[in-house]
C-alpha cells in the first residue's frame, strides 16, 4: 500500500502523543522527539500536536521559534554550533569560525546546499576552560583548532554513508 508521507507522519505522531500524554507539559518531549527524527518540525506536525494537547497551533509555533534547538525549517544533517562568548573568543574562536566558513562555503546562520551542514552561533555552553568549544549535533568538541575542524568535518562526512544520506534526503524532501 502506498502511504503518503503525511499519513506516515500522522501515524507516528499518534504513537508519540499516546506515549507522552495529552497534557500541555508533554509539548516539549513531543517536539524534541519530532526534531530528533526529522531535523525540523513541519507545520502539519505543529497543528496536529496542538490539536492533541488542546492548545493553539500558534502557541506551538511560539515554542518552536523560541528554542534554538527546535526548528521550523529543514536544516543540515549536522548542526555545528560554535561558542561565541568571551572565553572562547579569547581562545581563538575567530580562526575556527573562518576555517568552518571556508571549508563549508557558507556563512554562519546558513545551511549547505546539500543539506549536510548548518553553521550557527551558540552562547556559552559551560566549557569556558577548554575553549574554543563547539557542538556538532549532540557531541561537544573542546580546544578546537582550525586543523581539528578539518578532522571533525571529515568524521561527519564519513558517517554519512551513501545509504544513510539517501534516507536523510528523503526525509528532508517530505
Amino acid at each position: 500500500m502506498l502511504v503518503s508521507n503525511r499519513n506516515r507522519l500522522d501515524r507516528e505522531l499518534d504513537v508519540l502523543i499516546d506515549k507522552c500524554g495529552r497534557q500541555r507539559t508533554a509539548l516539549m518531549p513531543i517536539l524534541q522527539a519530532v526534531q530528533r527524527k526529522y531535523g525540523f518540525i513541519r507545520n502539519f506536525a505543529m497543528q496536529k500536536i496542538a490539536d492533541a494537547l488542546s492548545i493553539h497551533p500558534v502557541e506551538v509555533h511560539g515554542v518552536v521559534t523560541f528554542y534554538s534547538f527546535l526548528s521550523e525549517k529543514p536544516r543540515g544533517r549536522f548542526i555545528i554550533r560554535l561558542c561565541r562568548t568571551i572565553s572562547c573568543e579569547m581562545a581563538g574562536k575567530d580562526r575556527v569560525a573562518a576555517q568552518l566558513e571556508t571549508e563549508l562555503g557558507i556563512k554562519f546562520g546558513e545551511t549547505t546546499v546539500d543539506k549536510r551542514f548548518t553553521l550557527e552561533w551558540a552562547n556559552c555552553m559551560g566549557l569556558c576552560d577548554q575553549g574554543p568549544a563547539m557542538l556538532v549535533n549532540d557531541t561537544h568538541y573542546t580546544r578546537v583548532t582550525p586543523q581539528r575542524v578539518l578532522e571533525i568535518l571529515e568524521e561527519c562526512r564519513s558517517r554519512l554513508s551513501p545509504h544513510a544520506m539517501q534516507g536523510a534526503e528523503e526525509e528532508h524532501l517530505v
Partner: protein
Amino acid sequence: MTDNPKDIKSSDRAPKAQRGQVVQKPDGVDAIGAKITVNIDGQDIKVPMGTTILEAARKFGIRIPTLCHHDDLCVAGVCRVCVVEIEGQRALQASCAYPITSPLKIKTHTPQVRRARRHIIDLLLSKHYGECYTCFRNNNCELQSLAKEYGVDFFRFGHPEKPMYEKDNSSYAVVRDMNKCVLCRRCVRTCIDLQEVGVLEAAHRSSDTRIETFLDKPLSDVVCINCGQCINRCPTGALTANDPTDEVWAAIDDPTKHVTIQTAPSPRAGIGECFGLEPGTPMTFEMNTALRRCGFDKVFDTNFTADLTIIEEGTELLLRLYKALVEKDETVALPQFTSCSPGWVKFMEHFYPEMLPNMSSAKSPQQMFGALIKTFYAEQQGIDPSNIVSVALMPCSAKKFECNRPEMTDSGFKDVDYGLTTREMAKMISEAGIHLPDMPKSDFDAPFGTATGSGVIFGATGGVMEAALRSVIELVCGVRAEDLFEHANIIPVRGFEGTRLVELPIENVGPVPDVFKKLVPNWDWLKGATLKVGVCHGTANAKKVLDDIKNGGEFSKCHFIEFMACPGGCLGGGGQPIPTTPEIRAARAEAIYAEDRSYGVRKSHENPVIWELYEKFLTDGPCGHISHKLLHTQYTARGKYI
C-alpha cells in the same frame, strides 16, 4: 532581624539587600480573605490577602500607570511600567503582578521609580515606529499618554526612522502594523485566553520577539474570526480596523450614487464616548441628524431587520421543532444556534464545522437589510440598485468581513458595500465638522421607520433570546409577554455571566397566527413542552457550550442557543470605542435596555412594517421561497488546519 551588630548571626552576614524578607503574620491568616494592612505612600490600607498592589492602590485612589495590564485579561507583568518600590526589597516590583501576602511598605513615586518608569517608556519608544499625527489612535493612545505623563522630552535610546515590518492589510477586518507594537501581549491574552481563538502569540526570543500568527502568515490566511477584540485592547495603533471611510466619502460625494446607511443598536450606545460623553449615553436620534448632515441620503435602522431576523429565525426554529417532535425526523439538528454574529459564524466554520447544520440559516440583520435595500427598497423607490451604495454602521469588525463574503450577493449586487465601525463613524462625523451631542434629534427614514424594542436589545448579550422569547410567548402561547414577565423584561436571560440557561414551560397554546398556517396545523404538539434556551457570549464560553453539547451535557438538551462572539455581545464589539472594560460595557448595556423601555412597540412581531413587507414583497411568508433566497445563507466548513 536587627541592625544591632551584637545580634547579627552568621546567616545574617549577607548584605542587607540579600537577606530574606521578614514575613510577618497577617491578622487572622486562617480566615479566607484575611485582611492585611499595607502602607502605600504613607497611607495605611487594609486589603484582603492576595490583592495585588495595583488593585490596592486603585481602590484608594492612588494612581499607578499601567500598559500591559487590562481589566479583562490575566496578569502578565511584562511591560514593567507599573513598578513600585517596596521597602526592604532590592529590586523594583511590578505592582500589577505582586499579590500582597504580608504587610508591606510601598512607595509609588520615589526618584528610583520615576527614573525606572521614564527609562522603560524611553525603551518602548526606541522600538515604536510611527508618526502620531497619522495614527488612528492619535489622542487615544496609551503609550502616547504615558509619554506625556512621564515627561518624555527626547528619545534617550533612539527612535526608529524607518518602518521595520510590512503592514498586514490582508484581512478585511483587522490591520496589523507591527511597527507600532510594544509587545505588551494584550492581543495575545485576548486571542488565546479571552476568546480562545489562538491567532496571535509571541514568537522568537529576546530582542527578536514579535507577535506573530501561525507561521507568520497573513491574517486573512489564518483562523482569525475578525472579532476585533484585540483592536479594542491594543494600547497603541498596532492593531486597527480596516478603514473604508475614504470609499464611503467618495460614494457620498458622487451625485449619481444613492447612499444609504443602516445603523445597529450598539454604536448608538457607544459613539458618545468618542465625543467625550460618559459611557452609556444613547445618541440614537442625534446620530440620525449627524449622518444626514454627513451626506447619507437615507438613514435606516438595522433593528428593522433584527425584528425580521426574529421572525425568520423563530420560524426556522418552530419548523425544526415540528420536524423533530411531530414528524420524528432524527436528522434535524437541535439545538439551533443563532447566526447574527459574524465572528461567531466564522468561529464555527473554523473550529466546529461538524456542527454547522445547527446554525440557523438566517442571515445576520446587516446582510438581510443589505439584500432588502437593493431589492425591495430599490423597487419601491424606483432607484437602480447599481446606483445604491449600502453602508452599514456596526459595532463590529467582523461585519466588514461578512459583507465581503462571496455568497452575500443575493440581491444581484454586493448586498452591503461597506461596513463602518463606531470609531470610523465618529471620525467621519468629526471630519464633517459636527459635534454629535449638539445635534437636534430626528427619526429614521421611511419605509422602514423605527423598529421595536426587541430589535434594540440585539446589541446586548441575551438580547436576541429575549426578543425571540417575547415573540414566541405571544405567537405560540397566545398570552401577552407582560403576563409572564413584568413589563416583558425577561430578566433571566440578561446579565453578563458567560453562559446562561433558561427554561420556559409552555402550559397553554393559542391559535396559530395566519402567517404560520401554511407551515403548521396547530400548536397542540407544543402543549406541556418546556422550551429550553441558552445564552452565551465570548467565543471562549461558546467553546465550553459546544463541548458540553458534544458530551451530551445540559446544553445539548436546549432547543435554541444565542451565541455572540464578543464579551458582552455587540456592545462590546471590536468596532466600539476604545477603551473597553466591564464597567463601560455594563453602562452601554444599560443604555440599550433604557432605549428598549422607551419604545412604544417592544416586540418584533408587532412591528407593522414587517407584516407589510411580508404582504408586499416576501409574499410566501417567513421561511418561504423568496425569503430563503434573500434572507438565508449557507456556511463554509473551513476547518482549523491551514
